[in-house]
């Protein structure tokens, strides 16, 4: 009887989860592979024809291959921002955990402020404009680095505290201090947290919509999220193409999720609990 009730409950939970969480995704994929006429019905019907390749080609060719350029821009943005975040934040997190003093409380304060304070948009544009970086990819890269810094520093600081100090001391006896100590001895040991930082921040940067919207407007250097946003108004009748675009943009995070599910989840919960 109890077992029966248990499996009944299980069934209800599974069915509910499927309806609520899987139906929207199936809808995306189904609409993406329909032809234009059927996709306009926006229902859950099975596709009558499967112009998958044709839809794909049309989306990619749209507006002079803007999507390909957007993927290139988003890749450069994500790789560069994440690389800088890893180097800068591991260094800062290391010293922050190891070296006590007044500086530490100042830095801790700044890190927490970075987590809480919403960025001031127009003044940031003003600063970038002054530096000649407004509407440029390097400018947006710096913005992403600055806005994801607190989270990454916190993750690194927490992980460094699990690296025994005796190791530093042994290295120092061999004459390693400063840069040598960090990059030769400590940084290789931080690999697990580095992978976590890479995964979580690259998903965040790739999916970011607000900052490209403000700091990198214009078609020629749009990111994938911006093209999707612009397609929304352009393809108001070609739903199959709009949803094909959505599917294409969802693939990179899906791959990250399939291969590194555990790492991502642990990184996000650690960030949440520590922050």
């Amino acid at each position: 009887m109890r077992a029966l009730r248990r499996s009944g409950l299980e069934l209800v939970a599974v069915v509910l989860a499927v309806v609520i969480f899987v139906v929207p995704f199936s809808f995306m994929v189904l609409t993406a592979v329909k032809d234009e006429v059927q996709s306009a019905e926006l229902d859950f019907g099975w596709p009558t024809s499967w112009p998958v390749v044709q839809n794909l080609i049309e989306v990619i060719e749209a507006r002079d291959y803007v999507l390909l350029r957007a993927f290139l821009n988003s890749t450069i943005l994500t790789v560069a921002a994440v690389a800088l975040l890893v180097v800068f934040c591991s260094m800062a997190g290391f010293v922050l955990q190891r070296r006590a003093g007044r500086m530490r409380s100042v830095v801790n304060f700044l890190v927490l402020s970075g987590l809480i304070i919403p960025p001031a948009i127009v003044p940031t544009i003003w600063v970038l404009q002054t530096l000649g970086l407004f509407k440029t990819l390097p400018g947006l890269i710096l913005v992403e680095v600055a806005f994801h810094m607190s989270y990454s520093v916190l993750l690194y600081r927490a992980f460094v505290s699990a690296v025994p100090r005796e190791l530093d001391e042994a290295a120092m006896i061999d004459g390693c201090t400063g840069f040598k100590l960090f990059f030769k001895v400590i940084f290789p040991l931080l690999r697990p947290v580095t992978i976590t930082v890479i995964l979580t921040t690259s998903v965040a940067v790739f999916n970011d919509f607000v900052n490209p919207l403000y700091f990198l407007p214009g078609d020629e250097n749009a990111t994938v999220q911006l093209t999707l946003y612009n397609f929304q108004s352009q393809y108001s009748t070609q739903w199959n193409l709009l949803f094909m675009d959505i599917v294409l943009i969802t693939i990179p995070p899906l791959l990250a999720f399939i291969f590194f599910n555990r790492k991502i989840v642990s990184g996000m919960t650690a960030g949440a609990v520590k922050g």
Partner: protein
Amino acid sequence: MTSSKPGTVTSSEPPTVAAGRRAPARKGKGGRGNPYPYLFYVPAGIVYTVVFLVPTVMAFYFSMTRWTLFDSTFVGLENFTDFFAEQNLRIGFQNTLIYAVTTSALKVVLGMALGVVLTSRLKMRGLLRSVVFFPVLVSTVAVGITFSVLLKPDTGLVNKALALVGISGPDWLGDANTALLSVALVDVWKGVGLATVIYIAGMMSIPRDYYQAVAVDGGSSWHRFRYVTLPLSWPATNSVIILSFIGGLRSFDLIWTMTRGGPGFTSDVIASIIYKQYQAGFFGLSTAGNVILFVVVTALVVPLTRFLSAREVSA
């Protein structure tokens, strides 16, 4: 005045996060330089200062100006009085609070419920966890577009499904009464996975002994939840509230892709007003919105953090 407020966060934080060892920084060989040079702060510090700190501080000045990016005229508090005098702008202030409270309350309740279900001995636990978590990783724009289609008044799947059981659903995003809440529900759909995994992590760390003790006393599953799971997952609740509250106050992308603040201005939040004023070229007013958001966030989040961590100690 404003910079002293976040300071209270730091003072309440060190016990949990900054409990580094107090060993004195040792001199390197021959007393030359510290093995942990402050130089390591420099690259991060430059980017943070230039791109985040300077704009944040300058925002206070520019919010009191009429501003074209190239020159600015000081107008005192005019932007702020405008902000609160105009009905369309004031509503954004209310909506921001409604949105943040609704989303974080629902994320706490549903995240905890899902956490309980997904830590029980379900066979399909792994799969369900993945299914619930995946939306967290999907782009907000994609989620926004998909749900604005699903929520369409006549053709949308949601209303078609409701019609099957005899309910005629409203025009979710086109009706001033439901627009903001509909977006909030989609926000919960997208974000509850993160709350759930935080709860799962918290619940997994509860020692088994407590549950055994309840079983020995003949307690039901309700007792297990009420007297063990609920109080001992307080740290998880704490982080879920803080995270989703900050996120809710700052949220922009979902609202913008689903309603653009409409119909009219009824689902505008502070962040979308900042964008609208920026687009319209009112940079000073836009920045005033930013300063208001800053004040709202710090004035609510800092006391909330203190209150929650005080409860955590006593719980």
